[in-house]
């Protein structure tokens, strides 16, 4: 186990591959996922459904890729510790403790038969081994942190007594209970009303700043990325196709897919024709040999028939397109 310095990334994913084997055939769901999350920063992992972003999160947490029909290749280093192949016992000490996860559906992530107090306390006692009273004290602390009013009374409430937005705050509280260093949030606001989403995003930003958390934020909404993320990694068909600082990627995307995705997002402040990308992402078992986006790409050329590497084109900037070494050509519409 190598020592992890302040400068090293908290999470370093390199060439991650996830293969599902069924009936003798292997399906490579993830195939070349590389990104880093630095200390105190928020990395957005963005892509459409089927791009593999949730699978990446589940792989990091050790929920997939660790049984007979699923396997992981590559490297996931958390604070210098390699997670692929890590024994279950050690993984359990990390999960819910140093690495916490916030899921999408607050309705189904909480057990309806137990009070929220007991559910949060369960995780605290598991990892910190403290008494029930001490655990409950921490529960109140953490419910206050997520701005749930009358926290001490609400310990005894059941999940169904909370609204959707409140339940999501409870989930965040649960994630914070053991003072994690790293949080993975998988579409935490997608199921919420817009006005509630805005509140939750504000809360996450405040918590991150106050507690010095590192955050991996998974979403399909570019607006959310623009709001909360410092850096962004764009996924397509199981691969990372672009990574960089949020200001850079939005101002000057260096992969045609990122550029098209940004152009397609309907914006409150813009008028003009709606854009879309023709066709649809390839099925897992029907991916082209060369660039996976080429069949839909308006800038496709001969070079795209070759598999594309993730090229480093600047400090903390990468793109999986051979054109990325310079600005992408303008598209005539």
């Amino acid at each position: 186990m190598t020592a992890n310095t302040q400068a090293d990334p908290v999470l370093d994913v390199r060439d991650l591959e996830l293969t599902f084997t069924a009936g003798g055939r292997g399906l490579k769901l993830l195939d070349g996922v590389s990104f880093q999350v630095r200390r105190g920063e928020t990395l957005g992992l963005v892509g459409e459904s089927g791009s593999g972003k949730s699978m990446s999160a589940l792989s990091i947490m050790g929920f997939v890729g660790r049984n007979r029909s699923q396997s992981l290749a590559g490297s996931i280093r958390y604070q210098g510790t390699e997670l692929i192949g890590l024994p279950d016992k050690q993984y359990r000490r990390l999960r819910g403790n140093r690495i916490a996860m916030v899921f999408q559906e607050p309705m189904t992530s909480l057990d309806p038969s137990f009070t929220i107090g007991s559910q949060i306390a369960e995780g605290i006692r598991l990892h910190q081994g403290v008494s029930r009273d001490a655990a409950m004290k921490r529960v109140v602390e953490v419910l206050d942190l997520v701005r749930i009013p009358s926290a001490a009374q609400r310990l005894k409430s059941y999940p169904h007594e909370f609204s959707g937005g409140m339940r999501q705050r409870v989930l965040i509280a649960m994630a914070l209970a053991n003072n994690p260093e790293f949080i993975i949030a998988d579409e935490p606001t997608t199921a919420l009303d817009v006005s509630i989403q805005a509140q939750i995003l504000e809360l996450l930003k405040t918590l991150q700043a106050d507690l010095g958390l590192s955050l991996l934020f998974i979403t399909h909404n570019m607006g959310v990325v623009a709001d909360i993320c410092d850096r962004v990694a764009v996924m397509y068909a199981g691969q990372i196709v672009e990574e960089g600082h949020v200001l850079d990627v939005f101002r000057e995307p260096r992969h045609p897919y990122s550029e098209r995705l940004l152009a397609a997002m309907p914006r409150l402040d813009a008028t003009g024709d709606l854009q879309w990308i023709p066709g649809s992402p390839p099925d897992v078992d029907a991916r082209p040999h060369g660039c996976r986006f080429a069949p839909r790409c308006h800038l496709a050329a001969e070079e795209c028939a070759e598999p594309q590497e993730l090229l480093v084109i600047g400090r903390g900037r990468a793109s999986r397109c051979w054109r990325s070494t310079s600005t992408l050509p303008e598209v005539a519409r």
Partner: protein
Amino acid sequence: MSAITKTEVIATLAGSRPTRGRFVQRFRRQPIAVGALGFLLLVSAMALLAPWLIPHDPYQQDLARVLQTPSGEHLLGTDELGRDVFSRLIMGARVSLLAALQGTTLAIAIGLPLGLVAGYVRGRVDGAIMIVTDALMALPALVLAMAIVAIWGPSLTNAMVAIGIVTAPRALRLVRSSVLQIREETFIEAARSIGTRSIVIVLRHVLPNVVAPLIVFTAILAGTVMLMEAGLSFLGLGVQPPESSWGAMLGTSFRYISRAPLLAIYPGLAIALTVLALNLVGDGIRESIGKKLQK
């Protein structure tokens, strides 16, 4: 850019097969179900062609040759009255299968329409139907059938009608619960918004989507009905001599079980295998249907 671009859609459709073909394709991929279906077809063929298949007259008694072991002359031996067991077994298939068909059809004929009505209309009509249904289900089916036959008098027809009535509640509940789920689907709301009449909605939209789970249920119900018929005939309340079903054969053979144990095994095995085959085919159909209503 026009939103009306056709090319990629044609490409996706060209490669796929129509839905009906896929059901058969999926069914064929299950060796056990296919084997079971083959067995059922064999037994059905046997029953249909019985008059031409039997080597001996199944009613012909020969008191000089009772309880004989299998021989060249009598493939499965003779029974207590000297009748050829093999021939009786084949004829028995006719009776047993026909009876199962009768009972099952009656159960569905009662359960399907009432289940549709109860599930779609709901309210007091549903309440009334369910009170009767629950009351019937509270009583043990076979005992109830026996009671009905005892009142009407023993005969195969009476037995099958009784069994049909007694198993109808199960079919009704299955149909009803299916309808309850289907009526919440958006396409039902869409049909209403189009202006389709309720009766048409039930027949065109609800019924075809109920059929899938119903067919699976029917295969298994047929097995249950067959067992019930066997039970009633075993007790002498079903088929009456000189007609015989497998259940009746099983019943009479018990008296001679020490002398000729094989006599009980043939009809017993026939019943067991047929019911098993029905269940396996039901399973196979369920697997092949695919997830149409679920995402």
